[in-house]
């Protein structure tokens, strides 16, 4: 039969075989259609009637031509080629891949939330505005801050928002011209320096001391009145609590700088301590880490920014604010009416609308379900799990800063590399075979062959024990063993160099002759094990 690939053949589903999955474009057959449209009764004007010739394309835009059945099979098979939290443990350091409760999926699956137009007048969106106000209040209580913006759609966006808040603050003090530098520890996440640049500041790196924390003397030596502020995460990316944080805050405030808290590691300290108490002025949170918004394969997330009283006039707008007027619109038990307010010295808008609203709502459902008591339990278990696993790996792996950690810790494969040429990368690939996702590797940069492990609180002790056993087994591997991993996944190690060398960014960019590599050996040739 001429035309496309067989949409009903399942050899790409790991259950059935180890072929690759054809692309939508290979599954296409000219003239095949899934789409259909409701009856409207409107006049059937043609494209020529409706579009000036100068603008009208003469060829239809090529998309794909697949049946609904093949589209469903294609996406379902792709989903079987994808690891996820719902399949198993995902100890990616710094990413907080905890279980995302299903109740949050259902909480936001309401027409009353999903079908609300962002430009509708406030009278029609009171429920959303109340939800935002309630979430903002909770985030402030958790971080010890005075006010927050929910607009930033991710952590990096929150960082940039925070840096622009710094600028606005210093600008208001007539100091914007003078303050040009932002301090960042060498263990910081890449988004921090990148955001500093976009904020129009210069990065000054601060070294870590031999305990893995900010080197206080080095910090002080870099402080001057041209410093706009410092970005820290605490616990830091090594999973260690910055014990000098109060001194650091004092020193930075001393020279008129502000402290920015990167909230990616907030999962460690919920109900234990608050950035506000540590002296931070600006805090971003990754709701897609700490508050169980699922990562969606890379997003969407939400990165609200909370600030102290003195910074609140600069927050982005519009912000939903409760007025003392009675409820308006279809209220149903809301207290008071809400309206959109522009902070008087706002840095302006930073999202097309009001941020990733449904992600924010998910996080709020998670916070409501846990409550103050549950959030503290989260951090207790997250920190307990990390320390227990660190303890189990001692001896088998180098642990550069081997002391009580918070929610995560960084091990290193330097010993394995030295003794038998097994690298962090190999350990990662071997762990996949053992049924666990790999930890974050080669980050933070201050640790060689870094294996950054964050078990999260939702993994059971039994899962931790199995993960520890697997890692100990791997520590005994020969380079040979390790190099061949992973052998259980639908594809083996992927040639990243080739991808960059001969870039194929779309199906249409395939080299004319040869085209793409084959979907895979027909049937079984590769599958006789």
């Amino acid at each position: 039969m001429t035309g496309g690939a067989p949409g009903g053949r399942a050899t790409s589903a790991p259950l059935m075989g180890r072929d690759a999955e054809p692309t939508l474009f290979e599954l296409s057959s000219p003239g095949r259609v899934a789409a259909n449209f409701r009856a409207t009764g409107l006049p059937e004007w043609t494209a020529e009637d409706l579009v000036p010739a100068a603008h009208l394309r003469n060829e239809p835009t090529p998309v794909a031509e697949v049946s609904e059945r093949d589209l469903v099979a294609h996406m379902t098979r792709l989903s079987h080629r994808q690891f996820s939290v719902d399949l198993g443990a995902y100890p990616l350091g710094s990413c907080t891949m905890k279980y995302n409760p299903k109740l949050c999926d259902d909480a936001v699956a309401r027409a009353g939330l999903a079908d609300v137009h962002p430009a509708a007048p406030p009278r029609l969106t009171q429920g959303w505005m109340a939800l935002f106000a309630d979430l903002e209040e909770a985030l402030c209580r958790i971080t010890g801050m005075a006010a927050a913006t929910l607009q930033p759609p991710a952590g990096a966006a929150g960082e940039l928002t925070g840096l622009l808040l710094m600028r606005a603050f210093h600008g208001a003090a007539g100091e914007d011209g003078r303050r040009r530098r932002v301090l960042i520890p060498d263990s910081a996440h890449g988004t921090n320096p990148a955001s500093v640049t976009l904020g129009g500041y210069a990065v000054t790196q601060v070294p870590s001391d031999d305990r893995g924390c900010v080197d206080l003397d080095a910090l002080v030596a870099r402080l001057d009145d041209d410093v706009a502020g410092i970005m820290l995460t605490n616990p830091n990316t090594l999973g260690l609590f910055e014990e000098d944080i109060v001194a650091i805050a004092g020193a930075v405030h001393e020279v008129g700088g502000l402290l920015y808290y990167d909230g990616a590691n907030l999962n460690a300290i919920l109900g234990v301590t608050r950035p506000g108490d540590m002296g931070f002025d600006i805090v971003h949170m990754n709701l897609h880490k700490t508050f169980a918004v699922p990562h969606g394969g890379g997003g969407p997330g939400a990165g609200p920014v909370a600030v102290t009283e003195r910074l609140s006039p600069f927050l982005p707008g519009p912000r939903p604010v409760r007025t003392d007027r009675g409820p308006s619109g279809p209220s149903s038990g809301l207290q008071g009416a809400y309206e959109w307010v522009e902070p008087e010295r706002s840095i302006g808008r930073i999202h097309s609308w009001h941020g990733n609203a449904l992600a924010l709502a998910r996080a709020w459902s998670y916070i409501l379900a846990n409550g103050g008591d549950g959030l503290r339990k989260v951090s207790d278990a997250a920190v307990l799990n990390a320390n227990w696993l660190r303890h189990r790996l001692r001896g088998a792996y180098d642990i550069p800063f081997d002391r009580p950690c918070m929610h995560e810790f960084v091990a290193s494969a330097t010993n394995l590399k030295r003794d038998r040429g097994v690298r962090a990368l190999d350990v990662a690939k071997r762990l996949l075979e053992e049924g666990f996702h790999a930890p974050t590797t080669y980050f933070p940069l201050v640790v060689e062959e870094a294996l950054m492990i964050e078990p999260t609180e939702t993994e059971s002790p039994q899962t931790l024990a199995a993960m520890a056993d697997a890692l100990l087994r791997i520590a005994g591997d020969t380079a040979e063993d390790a190099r061949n991993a992973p052998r259980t996944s639908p594809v083996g190690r992927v040639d990243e160099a080739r991808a960059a060398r001969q870039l194929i960014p779309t199906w249409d960019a395939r080299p004319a002759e040869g085209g793409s590599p084959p979907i895979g050996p027909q049937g079984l040739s590769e599958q006789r094990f």
Partner: protein
Amino acid sequence: MHFVPHTEAEVAEMLAALGLASVEQLFDVVPAALRLAGGLDMADGLAEADVAGRFDAYAAANRPVGADLVCFAGAGAYDHDMPSVVNRLAYRSEFVTAYTPYQPEVAQGVLQALFEYQTLVCRLFGTDVANASLYDGASACVEAVNLAVAATGRPEVWISRGVHPHWRQVMTTMAVGTGHHLTDIALDDGLTSWPESGLPGAILVQSPNYLGCLEDVGAAGELARRLGALLIVAADPVSAGLLISPGSLGADVVVGEGQPFGAPLSLGGPYLGLFACRREHVRRLPGRLVGETVDTGGRRAYVTTLRTREQDIRREKASSNVCTNQTLMAVAFLVHLAWLGTSGLRELALRCARGTRYTREALLVIDGVEPLAGAPTLREFAVRTPLAADILVDRMADEGFLAGVALGEEYGGGLLVAVTEKRTKAEIDAYVVAFEKVVR
């Protein structure tokens, strides 16, 4: 309700292994002065059923669009039909609960979906490369300007006033950090009237623009080439079914709001920013890019590539600070657009255009209702109304319609009306009747 699996016995066993007497001791590293006495000042956790109850209340306090509030509002957020396959496929938990595909061997699902998404975005816009999504239309504009300024070394940027006002506001916010000089270019009868000369690094035009008018993208392209600027076009993926692609009209970078495919209105997020450009700019591309390659067995495979552009490697020299993006929305976009297919996309655009024409003609019959601009429109249009637009929208809500979006001062007021394939003749006729009643 709590999600920590540990039993008390297990906690005790683990603490014992660590030689600790209490969970509290885990936090000894936290200076006593910083400890939160008495814990968080928040209510205790709720049962699942009670959380649902709270959310019922929030939902009940909104008025969603639907039979009781028929939607004629657009302005960058459109009320399209979404086929069942979108949620049934894109929201499978493997896609929902995966992280960024750092381990390609067990992430081919997301990677291949993104590769197919990138292909579709390029086909819509006539470009060579597209990234794996940005936050929204506004952030895509910001990144495009950053790319263009870096590529040309010119900080001057001309931005048509036909670009969505919120997107322009976000660019303005961000320009404080980047130091770019943004100049608003006014509209004349609905279309941008560009200056003859100057030294812009980028020219940004939206078509169909905020008022729904079709801009002369080709002319903007020639101007850009003549002045040595890059042309950035903000385009609509639905209109792409009928319009000549920006890429073929000389656009260097094409951006857009992906919401019409796969994203519910949801008060404005999560949506997704579409970002595509010519191949020559690929090393300045912001965010993630998926490429095709092979595995050790020669089997076709996909992986994120050209990662040296990204923040985790380039740090302060990165092309952008974006890390988490809107991948899941890109997967939903893929499913929705693939379901429409080649003929369905064209049909969709055609149906939006039909409803728009029909509604516009019917409204203009009402006296006092005048076109705000004479330029041709496609899926959205603006009118001046005898009654102030915001009051009109308010009154129309009582009639069961979200009448449109009130235009701001910079457009001299007026009402922006969008009509999608969802609107039937009966609904439109009822809308016009209510409209007439309200303005009278």
